[in-house]
Each structure stands twice: as C-alpha cells, then as structure tokens.
C-alpha cells in the first residue's frame, strides 16, 4: 500500500489547477513542472521495479464507492510499467515544447494539458474496471478542449466529431463494464479486475461484452474501418498535443486489450481471434496504402499510425503460447509512441520552414541548410519504418513471429506492411528534406529550443534500439500470464 502512484497520476492535475490560479506568465512553468516530476517518478520506478516478481507492484487499493463496489486500486506491472514511462516522457517533452512557445491563453492550455496527463496515467495504472473506464472516458475531455480551442480551421467540428465518435465506443464499453461486473460478481458487486478475472462469464455473454470493449478500443486506436474521426482530428489538432495524443492515447486502447479484454473474456477472444486479426491486417494494408497517397504530413503520420496500431493489434491477438505476439505488441506500443511524437514535432519544424504549409508538395530540399534536423529526422524515419536495429524492428519481429506461429498466412500478408512502411516513411522524408527546394522553402537548422526537446527523444530512441532487453524482461512475465489466461 503506497501513495506513490497517486502522486504520480494526480501531480499533473494538481499543478494544472495551481497553474490555473497562478498569474498568467508562469502558467507554462507549472505545466513543465507538472510534467517533469512524474517523469522523474517514472524513471525511478523503472530502476526500482522488481522484474522478477510476479503480480502488481506499488499497489494502492482503497475502497472508494462501496455502493457500486468500485475500488480506488492502482498498480504497476510489466504491462504498464513502460507505458507509464512513455506517457510521462512524451508529456514532459510536449509540455516543454509548449512552454518554449506559449500559445494564446497558455494558462487554460496548461490546465487541460495537466488533466490530460492525469487521465492517461490513471487509465494506465487503474486496476479496477470502473476506474479504468472512468479515466478512459475522462481522457477525451481535455483533448476536446485542446483541439477545439487551439486547433486548426475546422477545429470545433473536428473536436465534436472526435469526441462523439470515440465516446460512442467508450459509452458502450461503460455499459459492458457494468454488465460484466454485475454478471461476474460472485456476491457483493465488484469491479476489481483481480476478482473479475477469478470468476469469468459464460461464453455467450463474454462474446457480447467483448464486442463492446473491442469496438471501444478499435475506435480509440483508431483501427480500420473505425477511423472516420481521425483525419479531421489530426488535421486540426495542435501539433504538440497531437504528439501526445497519437503517441499515448491510442496506446491506452491497445493496453486495454491486454489488461481488460484478454483476461476477462478469454473464450470470446479465442472465438473472435481471426476476425480481429483480419481487422488488424486491413488496418495495416489500408493505413499504409493511404499513408503514401496523402500529401499532408499530419495525415501521412495519422494513417501510418493506423498501420502501426494494426501491427499492435495483430500481436495482441496472435495468442501464441509463448506470448511473443503480445510481447511484441507491448514493445511496439512504446516504440510507436516514441517515434510518432518526435515526428509530429518535426512536422512543426518543417512547416515553419515551408512558409507554414504542412503539405509535402510545398516542401523539398529542406535538408540543405539543416543537417542536424535532417539527421534527427532520418533517425526517426528509419525507426518508424522499423529498420532492423531499431527497437521497432524488435517489436515487429516478435509480433510477426507470434502471428507466424498461430496464423502463418496472416503473418506473411502482414509482412508486406513492413515493405509499404518503408515506402511511405522514406517518401515523407525525401519529399520534405530532399529533392529540389519547394517554392516557399527557406531552409535553416533547428534552434536550441527545438533541440532541447527533440534530441532527448531521439536519444531515447537510440538507447532503446541498442538495448530493448530491459522493456522485454519487464513485460515477459505479465504478458505470458495474459496469454496463458486465454490459452486456459
């Protein structure tokens, strides 16, 4: 019983509120502090985490609402340890980025930003179904404001579309969660995952409820064909926000599959496996193909995310005995977050060099006077296309191996996704950095305030590429537990 996780998740909120009350000027400072302390916490946790031990660590478990059997129970294990770290890292980076370029009404921005981090972290560490759902739905609110107030031209419409579309899933999940708890509770109603895992439902109700959860997660990812909200949202969301949104929020969905769906509905998962694999496959191919037809950088990255999350879904539902697929999915979730965030920030820099345009057709030749930017961008690009030697490749290697063992054909088709990825990623790089200069391009290298954010992120990517073992070891036990649950 420790308070650490509570501090970890509520610190940003606290600072956000304080920042809201503080005088206008210092608000960004509050945001930075609010984002960096959790980062420190997470780093310490990484060091302190006991890889060998099974089960949860840093557990907090208090009664919250007896009436509904909802407990305030948090915990860290192999599944969420690194995702928490990733979250704190990306939020810290993004907060710093914003603090160095304060937007209008920075105070309000900081408030929503803090709420967002709290919600995401909460969703990651929650060990109670209702608590998870609560944070999962809460996540959307701050992003609605961030998109709606600081977004691009059609921000309001995009924001409404995003929230409504994704909440349709989330609310169904809410109902499903309640149903699960009510049906599964032995006596007293309980939402505690540990209890729910113990007494599972009948196969039919499992199928129904799993469908609700799956829908919610697939929409959130987003996964083909439920990505209708994505283009508008991505086109209009402010880039630093988009960095964390695309980097982290989508991972909550993937994590949800591992934490909630697989353990609670094993039989349903077994029945729906092929369907979900096919959805994942379609996401990979469709996302990749669209990614190399788009010219708007945000959309290229958006569709590439669809493909990447397709891979993650693929891994989760590989359900191979060793749990390689899930292991890879977990790793890939971290990797994708780690690469997509800097990419969005770089996109901001590119736009700054292409007279504000985010369209590839207006770019080209930006590398000429920006060697540092070009190098960082190149590293991130290669990581994105899962070049062997990057941690992303390790992730995909595990995923594909997992699928290869359960569904050979799927694996072989999916591997074309790797090829397509190399096409759209390089296309993005070449058409922005290489070739003849675009008409409005003025090439200049990145400044200190860009480097201070981007370089650490890229270093993180490199470090991860050299030694992914750490994350794998942490995840191994937990992942196997999950997959065994399904196998049983």
């Amino acid at each position: 019983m420790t308070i650490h996780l509570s501090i970890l998740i509520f610190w940003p909120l606290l600072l956000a509120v304080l920042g809201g009350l503080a005088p206008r000027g210092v608000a960004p400072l509050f945001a930075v502090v609010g984002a960096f302390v959790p980062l420190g916490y997470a780093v310490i946790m990484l060091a302190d985490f006991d890889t060998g031990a099974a089960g949860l660590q840093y557990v907090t478990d208090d009664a919250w609402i007896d009436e509904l059997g909802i407990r305030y129970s948090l915990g860290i294990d192999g599944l969420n340890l690194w995702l928490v770290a990733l979250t704190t890292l990306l939020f810290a980076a993004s907060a710093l980025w914003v603090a160095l370029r304060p937007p209008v009404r920075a105070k309000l921005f900081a408030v929503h930003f803090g709420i967002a981090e709290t919600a995401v972290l909460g969703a990651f560490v929650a060990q109670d179904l209702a608590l998870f759902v609560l944070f999962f739905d809460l996540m959307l609110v701050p992003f609605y404001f961030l998109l709606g107030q600081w977004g691009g031209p059609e921000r309001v419409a995009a924001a409404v579309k995003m929230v409504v579309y994704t909440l349709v899933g989330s609310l169904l999940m809410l109902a499903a969660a309640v149903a699960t708890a009510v049906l599964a509770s032995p006596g007293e109603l309980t939402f505690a995952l540990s209890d729910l895992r113990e007494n599972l439902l009948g196969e039919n109700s499992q199928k129904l409820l799993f469908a609700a959860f799956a829908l919610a997660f697939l929409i959130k990812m987003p996964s083909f064909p439920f990505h209708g909200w994505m283009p508008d949202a991505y086109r209009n969301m402010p880039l630093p926000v988009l960095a964390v949104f695309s980097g982290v929020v989508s991972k909550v969905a993937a994590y949800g599959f591992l934490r909630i769906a697989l353990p609670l509905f094993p039989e349903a998962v077994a029945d729906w496996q092929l369907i979900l694999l096919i959805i994942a496959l379609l996401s990979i191919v469709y996302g990749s193909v669209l990614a190399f037809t788009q010219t708007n950088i945000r959309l290229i990255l958006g569709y590439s995310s669809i493909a990447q999350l397709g891979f993650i879904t693929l891994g989760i539902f590989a359900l191979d005995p060793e749990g390689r697929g899930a292991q890879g999915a977990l790793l890939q979730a971290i990797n994708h977050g780690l690469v997509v965030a800097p990419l969005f920030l770089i996109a901001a820099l590119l736009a700054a060099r292409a007279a504000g345009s985010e369209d590839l057709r207006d770019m080209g030749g930006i590398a000429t006077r920006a060697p540092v930017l070009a190098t960082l961008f190149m590293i991130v690009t290669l990581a994105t296309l899962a070049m062997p030697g990057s941690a992303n490749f390790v992730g995909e290697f595990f995923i594909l191996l997992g699928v290869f063992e359960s569904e050979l054909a799927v694996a072989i088709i999916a591997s074309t996704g790797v090829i397509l990825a190399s096409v759209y990623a390089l296309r993005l790089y070449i058409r922005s950095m290489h070739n003849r200069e675009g008409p409005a391009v003025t090439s200049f290298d990145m400044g200190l305030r860009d480097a201070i954010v981007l370089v650490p992120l890229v270093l993180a990517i490199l470090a991860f590429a050299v030694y992914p073992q750490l994350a794998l070891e942490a995840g191994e036990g937990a992942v196997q537990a999950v997959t065994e649950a399904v196998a049983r």
Partner: protein
Amino acid sequence: MSVTTYGWLVLAFPLAGTILIGLTWRLLPARAHGILGTLAIALSFAAAVLAFFELESLGEEERQVVAVGWNYAVANGLDAKVSILIDPLSTLMMLVVSGVSMLIHLYSVAYMGGDRGYTRFFAYLNFFVFSMLLLVLAANFFLLIVGWAFVGAASYLLISFWYRRTTATQAGIKAFVINVVGDVGLVLGTYFIFRGTGSLDFLTTFEEVGSAFGRNDGDLVAGCLLLLVGAFAKSAQVPLHTWLPDAMEGPTPVSALIHAATMVTAGVYLIARMHPLFEQAPVAADVGAILGCATLLIAATIGLVVTDLKRVIAYSTMSQIGYMVMAVSSAAYAAGMFHLMTHAFFKALLFMAAGSVIAAMAGTQNLDRMGGFRRAMPFTFGCMVIGGLALSGVPPFSGFFSKDEIIALLFAREDWHVVLGVLGYVGSFMTAIYTFRMIFRAFSGEPVTEARELLDHGHLYHPEHPTNPMTGEIEDTDVGFPGPEHHIAEREAPMKAAMGMLALLATIGGAVQIPSVNEALHHFLEPAFHDSRFYEELEPSGTLTIVGLLIGSAIALLGIFVAYTLWVRSPERPRALQQRFAFLHRIFVNKWYFDEGIDLLVVRPMAWVGRFAASTFERTFVNGALVGGTSGLVRLGSAAVRRVQNGYLRYYAALLLMGITTLGAYFLISA
C-alpha cells in the same frame, strides 16, 4: 588479445569513425574528416589482419569462435543476442571488406575533395563499413538481419548522396525498398528455420538442422528460398536486380565499394554461411544455382549493349555475382569466395578507373560521347586494362583463376551442373566482349573535346553549367549536388595510390589459390565448412582443371579479339549487327523489360489501390456509411421531432390522446 577482441575492434573502429565524424562535423576542417575516416578503416583492417593471424594460431577445430556482447532481445524463448562469430569465412570477408574499403576511402579522400558534402560522405562511408562488418561477423540470424538492413540503409544514403538530384533520390528509394523486400524475405526465412531449430544462433542452428528437418523438409526449403530472396535482393540477382544499375547515381567510389566490392556480395556470403541448411535442402540450392546462372547470362547480354560506362560495369558486377551465387549454391564454396575476393579487387579497380574517366568527362557517363582517352590518361588506361583482363579471365590475372575454378567445380559436380558450367563459359565469352568494348570505346579512337582539353592544355574540361548527366537539368554546386571542384581525373596522389594498389592485387590476387599449386585459400576456409558434405569430396581431377584453364583463357582471348575487331578495326560493324539482330538488341537495350514488368505488376496496382482508397473508399464508406449514415439518421429523427413540435396546442393534445389510446390498447391486450 583473443581473436574475438580483435573482432570487436574491427567493428568498433568504423563505428567510432562515424560517430566522431558526425560529432565533429563543425569543429574540424573537411579534409580532416576524410583522413579520420580512412584512418578508422585502416585500423579496422589492421585489427582484421591481427584477427587472421590469431585465428591461424588456433587449432583446426576451434577456429569457430563466438563472443556474446550483451543480450539484445532475449525473451519469450527467443535468443537474440549481440554476438559475433569469428571463423575463416568471416575473417576472409573481414579482410576483403576492410581492405578494399580502406583503399576506396583513400581514393575518395581525393575524389570527393571538391564536394560540399565531404564530411557527410565519410560519415556515411564509415557507417557502411561498420554495417558490412556487422553483417559479416554476425553470429545469429537477428544480428545478421540487422547488419543486412544497415548496409541497405547505408547504400540508400550513399546512392542518394546528391540528394537534390531527383534521379538520385528515386534510385535511392528504389534500392531501399527492394532491399527491404530482401530483409522481409530474410526475416520470414528465419522464422521458418527458427520454427524447426528453436534458436537464432548460427552454430546451434547448424547443429540442430540435421535433427530438426528431414532432407528437403518443406519448412526448411521454404526457409532457404526466403533466405535466397534476401540474398538476391542484396546481390542484385534476377529478378530483384533492377535497383543496381540505377544505384550508379551515387558517387563513383560508392559504386566501387558498395555496388561492386562488398555489399552486393553479401548474398554470396549468406549462402556460403548457410551451407548446412542448403545442403539439407538441395532443392533450394539448385534454385539458387539456376537463377545465378540466369543472372549471369542476362546481365552479360545487357552489358553488351549499354552505353553508360558505369552501368556496363554494374551489369558485369551482376553477372560476376551470378557466377559466385552459382558456385556457392552448387557447393563450390571456396571457389565462390575466391571469386568474390578477386572480383572485389578488379571490379573496384574498374570503377575507380571509370570514375577517373567520368571526372574527366565532367560527369558524363555516356560511352557514345567518349573516346581517345588513352594518351590523355595513361595511368587510368593502364588500370582499366588490367581490370579488364582480370575480369575477362585472361591468365595470369586473378579473375582467370577464380572464374575457371568455379566452372571446373561445376563440371566436377557432374549431372546437370555441367550445363551450368557450359553456360558459364558462354558468359565469360560475353564478359570479355563487353569489357573490352567498354575499354576500346572509351580510350581508343579520336580524342573527344574533353580528352583533347586534357591533352593540349593539361587541365580538365569545365562546362559552364554543371548539369545532371541523366536528365541534363541545370544544377548548382551546393550541398546535395556534386561540388564545383569535382573534376580531378587521375591527378591526385591518393587516387593513384589506391588504384595502383588494387591493380597490383587484381594482377596477383589469383596467387592464393592456384589449382594443384597452391591451395591456401581452400585450406584456410576448411574449418568453416567442416560440416559440409561436398567441401572435401568436390575436387576436380587434374586433367579437367588443366583443360578448363586452357578453354577459359582461349575464350577470354577470343572475346577480346572480337571486341577489338568490332570496335577498333571496323566501328561500323556493330551498327550492322544491331540491324541484323534488331529483336535481340531491343530486348537487351530494354534490359529484358524487368523494370516495366515490376512496374506493371506491383507499382501500378498499388498506386491504383491507393488512389481508390483515398478518393472513393474513404469518402463513401469510412466517412459516408459509418459516420454520415448514423449522423444522418439522427438528424432525420431530429427533424421529425421538431416538425411534430409545431406549436399547435391541439396537436399536442391529439398526440396526448393518441398516447393514452395506444397505452390503453396495450394494457387491454396484455390483460
């Protein structure tokens, strides 16, 4: 120090060089980086040499040493470690790679002198060497794949080194994507093998393979074929070869190093390395051999007609690698590696010479516009001829021994491999022809303006505008384009040194393995192939060898003679021949329509699907049916509700009454 330590050092130096150059890109003057890079490789080479001796000092059977650096991805029953394997095979490769690389670095120090991207060039080049050595030293599939992809990336970076040339970037992405195809093949192949042996480590796998798979076991064959996909993509074998000719967009040293000497031979190395698997899956091996043979003929035919200097050499590279693949796939391992080595020498040499010529031509590579450089650039001419003789296998040059060794072993292999041997001779005939066609057209005949400029005024030809030789579009000389002082034919010392060195090697390189005289290489490599079924047995009889050598030299000389008659004696003859064999000529000129085929089968459909998805599907289904449909439904309902809410009190009352009635009806019915 132990042999593995040297192995790590071999890896460490180039990497350190890359990082150092990268970090000091602003601190040191450009030239310093050139020297730094060369130095790094030199050290690496030294380490390789030491490793060689260290290895020699070990006993026959413990000449396969594995060293584990750290666990890379050891989880869920997967054993992907950072571990290197030092054995004669990898050592030979180390030596060749680091050695040739060193010379080419040296060459580049001068050749790239005028380029604005000088520092970047050496960073890339060092990175490439590191990757190549990683590939060579990898002790498990995972690391092999890593190195494999790294060299691919390095080659991409160097191909599109002049990144503001659209032609260059296109060539780059083409090369990269095809290489990724290879990587994927390698990965999937690994899966198949891993499924059987349950380990990624080479030596474990090789031990397991016998017990894990039966002969020609389905999984194993599939795995090996997929490995071949990887090998072919990297070694530009049919049908995954189309990237290599385009890769000539890169600076000439790159072509020399990557696309002639080292990277493209990785496939050969892979097959040799995986020999236990291929011997267990002969079907796959045969496929390899046949495709290799096909490649060598196709490439040679194209080489006969291409008019681009560098591309001629590129195609000849393809065809030579075809020999090697054919060799290692038919268990002539030593011969294959031998040819790999000699080829590295003379092909690098040829490229350097070509680079010198191209420099003199101010970037132009078209043979039709060349001529008469013999007196203008004697040194280059000399090198070119030596290289040419070696390539076309004229005794006593290195190529002669290696190539004929291969063919001899093919004959020794009996049954249908004999056919391959015969075709090998056909290939070598064509080789001799196109090689000397190239040489004659570039050096003999009336000096062209550029040559004359060099002869009469002793300085290089400078066009008023730098242009892209492919498209002829005007360029500046800033970063991303060739620099202003980019024309330094054979002037500078480092170039001469490098070329001279290679010329020497190309001449005497064959000495290491002369049939029935000196079997050094064969013995040296033996420990690496101790588990091979053929290595010992496959031994051509003395007479066969002698006959082979004689036929080989005869064919080569004949080829040279033909070339001489055609392009020196009566230059109008080729035109006539073209008329005669118009059909063949068209096929050859269009490179057997491979690009078109791939474009038709892969690129176009993909693009079409993409356009369809982006324009139609996204709108009609994803946003139309799913989003628009539901929202439309809701709006409709909203409209309906608000129409009913029309403000007429009596309407409300009516609805009230209706509600009451229906409710009453329901209750009556349920009663």
